[in-house]
């Protein structure tokens, strides 16, 4: 219920509906009657967090246990944070409105590095000490999952437990152990020793990290018996054994992605060398068309959503995509539902696919060639050729598309100014192509090509983890060069570089010595760092200085191939040898084939205990 103080705060803030709960699909239980209470914390705004599929998966799974209750908490926006601090309202969950301190488990999801200070802000608002070592038996178990756990070392000292890999089974095992521990009344240490046996569970306090004089890591060693030297991620071997969630909490005030989402496959076969998700979610596993169709239909019926998106890292790689669309097309129109395909790829975008998604608004087409020349695309293993872009654009222009958005990265390994010119050339060629295509629908006379450039951030567990990031000066020069190379008024350039990319690189490859820097930065007003208006670069630099840490050491240094990295003890199935091999192939400009065409032996098949693909004809496009 809303008490007086909360009402007072809500009267003073923008979008009070972010802080109230009660949405259709939210789960309410009698707190006296549950054995385990879990607060799922998303360290960003409500609208961002409510777009996130992972939370919906776990919310349904955990709440399916009658005696466990998972609730949600999000980071309060600046105005609400101020009200809560002034009025003394501790951070609470939307369902019961109970403070986080009343929960057995407080779990955070680590989706991107720039949300790390928001974790501190949320703990602070809840009155929970930051460091695991400062929390005795009376505090909730503070845990973390999500992709950034793959190098969560900068935040590792804050967590009791971190989860590598996929949470479906793992989190249920953790909850079961915590419930049992409560019944038995065992100590936290004893509980952690039990949890460490669950696949993918990483207890940061059970490892000691030693450093060399030059700042590199000397050793990472477990400090308890029975604790593995290397933690291997948890994985679902068979995606069909886990139905996608068919109930979502439907936000009342909207969300960034406010639609039904069905996860058609997990992982990616492509092996783009810059893409962390492409490596940490290996191997690719897909769900059958029949089950997906049923789940999509149930989800739409249960939520009332008017749009369903078939989500994954690369939806068009689903081997039964056309079958799935055929099945869905038998009911979507009658049920007033649109289908969205968010990650269409250039190379298997076909006319029939366009037809099958006629209920998708036809205006913008997005491609991510990522690099401007074939040479550089080979380096990053983005297997997209100009011929494919040309073919797809031709189909799309004929179908009535009039705007193309192209995503590129700047600062890729081996990149030269010639590659930058290639970005402008690609856009120019698309403009020319538009005017060459003859049978366009009437009234579609003009085209708009937008170039969107992000700054490359080398990420752990990728073949480019060894690479330094381009310095600010280098990036600025490249950006100026690109702007000078664009000659057409039909081409727009959006470059957003900022110091944020540098900080992202530092934190992504950082180690435990960054934890006090994060605390310092937060204490001095840094949170919501991912939001331009909240990013205070100078405050960050001061925080590094105060702790005697040179951020350039993390972002601008080439990592030796045999060096121990902060994430060396985390195993995502892909071997170190494979990453080195891919890195060397990259430097030679050699590509690697996608997993569904040929296995290149990354090692991730070990997680399944058998080959990832049966190389039948129907899996090969």
């Amino acid at each position, binding site marked *: *219920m*809303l008490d*007086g103080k909360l*009402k*007072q705060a*809500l*009267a003073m803030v923008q979008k*009070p*509906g972010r*802080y*109230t*709960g*009660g*949405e*259709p699909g*939210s789960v*309410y239980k009698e707190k006296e009657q549950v054995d385990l209470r879990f607060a799922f914390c998303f360290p960003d705004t409500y609208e961002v967090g409510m777009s996130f599929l992972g939370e919906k998966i776990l919310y349904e799974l955990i709440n399916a246990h009658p005696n466990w209750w998972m609730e949600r908490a999000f980071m309060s926006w600046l105005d609400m944070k101020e009200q809560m601090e002034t009025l003394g309202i501790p951070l609470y969950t939307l369902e019961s409105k109970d403070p986080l301190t009343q929960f057995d488990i407080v779990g955070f999801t680590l989706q991107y590095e720039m949300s790390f200070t928001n974790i501190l802000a949320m703990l602070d608002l809840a009155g929970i000490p930051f460091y695991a070592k400062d929390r005795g038996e009376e505090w909730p178990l503070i845990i973390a999952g999500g992709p950034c756990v793959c190098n969560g070392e900068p935040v590792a000292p804050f967590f009791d437990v971190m989860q590598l890999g996929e949470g479906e089974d793992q989190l249920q095992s953790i909850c079961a152990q915590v419930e049992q521990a409560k019944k038995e009344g065992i100590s936290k240490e004893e509980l952690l020793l039990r949890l460490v046996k669950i696949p993918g569970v990483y207890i940061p306090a059970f490892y000691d990290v030693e450093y060399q004089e030059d700042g590199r890591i000397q050793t990472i060693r477990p400090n308890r018996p029975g604790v593995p030297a290397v933690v291997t991620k948890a994985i679902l071997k068979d995606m069909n054994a886990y139905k996608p969630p068919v109930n979502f909490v*439907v936000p*009342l*005030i*909207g969300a960034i992605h406010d639609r039904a989402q069905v996860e058609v496959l997990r992982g990616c076969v492509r092996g783009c060398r810059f893409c962390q998700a492409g490596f940490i979610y290996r191997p690719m596993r897909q769900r059958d068309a029949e089950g997906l169709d049923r789940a999509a239909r149930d989800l739409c*019926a*249960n*939520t*009332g*959503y*008017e749009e369903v998106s078939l989500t994954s890292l690369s939806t068009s790689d689903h081997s039964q995509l056309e079958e799935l669309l055929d099945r869905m097309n038998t009911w979507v129109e009658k049920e*007033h539902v649109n289908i969205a395909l968010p990650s269409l790829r250039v190379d298997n975008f076909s006319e029939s696919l366009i037809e099958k998604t006629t209920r998708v608004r036809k205006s913008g087409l997005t491609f991510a060639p990522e690099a401007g020349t074939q040479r550089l695309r080979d380096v990053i293993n983005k297997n997209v050729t100009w011929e494919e872009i040309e073919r797809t654009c031709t189909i799309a222009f004929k179908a009535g598309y009039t705007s193309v958005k192209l995503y590129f990265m700047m600062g890729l390994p081996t990149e030269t100014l010639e590659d930058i010119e290639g970005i402008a050339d690609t856009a120019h060629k698309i403009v020319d192509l538009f005017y060459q295509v003859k049978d366009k629908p009437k009234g579609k006379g003009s085209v708009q090509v937008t170039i969107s450039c992000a700054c490359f951030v080398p990420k752990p567990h990728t073949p480019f983890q060894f690479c330094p990031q381009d310095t600010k000066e280098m990036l600025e020069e490249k950006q100026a060069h690109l702007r000078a190379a664009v000659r057409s008024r039909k081409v727009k350039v959006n470059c957003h570089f900022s110091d944020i990319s540098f900080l992202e690189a530092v934190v992504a490859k950082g180690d435990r010595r960054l934890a006090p820097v994060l605390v310092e930065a937060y204490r001095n007003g840094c949170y919501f760092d991912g939001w331009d208006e909240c990013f205070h670069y100078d405050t960050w630099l001061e925080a590094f200085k105060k702790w005697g840490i040179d951020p350039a050491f993390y972002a601008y240094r080439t990592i030796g191939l045999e060096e121990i990295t902060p994430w060396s003890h985390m195993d995502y199935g892909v071997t170190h040898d494979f990453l080195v091999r891919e890195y060397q192939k990259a430097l030679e400009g050699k590509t690697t084939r996608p997993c569904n065409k040929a296995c290149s032996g990354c090692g991730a098949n070990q997680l399944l205990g058998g080959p990832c693909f049966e190389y039948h004809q129907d899996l090969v496009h």
Partner: protein
Amino acid sequence: MNTIRIWFTKEGDASYISLLDLQRAMARCLKRSGLPVWYTQGFNPHIYMTFTSPLSLGQESLVESVDVKTEEEAPDFEEWKNRLNPVMPGGIRVTRVAPVVHKGEEVAFARYSVWTDQPGGREAAQAYNQADSLPVEKKTKRAVKTVDLKEILPHVQLETEGEKYSFQMLLPAGKELNTNPALVLESWEQAYGFPARNWNILRTGLYTRTMEEFS
């Protein structure tokens, strides 16, 4: 084609749903209910809905309504209500589904119940009732003009229950003359120094020009 009026409450958490958000949420709830509501025709069909006399954010109500259309010849209103209630957000409860009697434009007055647990509110109300006039600035679509609140609301009716007290206010409603109860409380803050915050505002009735209950 039948037009029918769905009556609902908007309380607690739900009082923070804006009209725009409520429109989208209501459409999804109607969709979830599976009831045969009518969709507009055309390229982008959507559920036909008209809301009556929207509320300000943070205020509660027992008498909100939305009109929808259906091709059902004789809709079973009880059935509609029973199917809608389980799919509504927390704080929204469907109280009645009924044929439309008055047009939406016919709303002319709204009754509010207003209460607080802060001390001093009673004195402010008494001062207001005794005052001859209380000029306030009222924003209309075009300009800000000064009006005498006492002409709009001659007095508020005090109800006490032990330590607790509340006021009943009958204010003009509808497109042209709508007066927000928050405006009254803000004027009390200016005139009598009683803080306008922390009030609970609950709309309890809607009436036509002849003080007939709007239905």
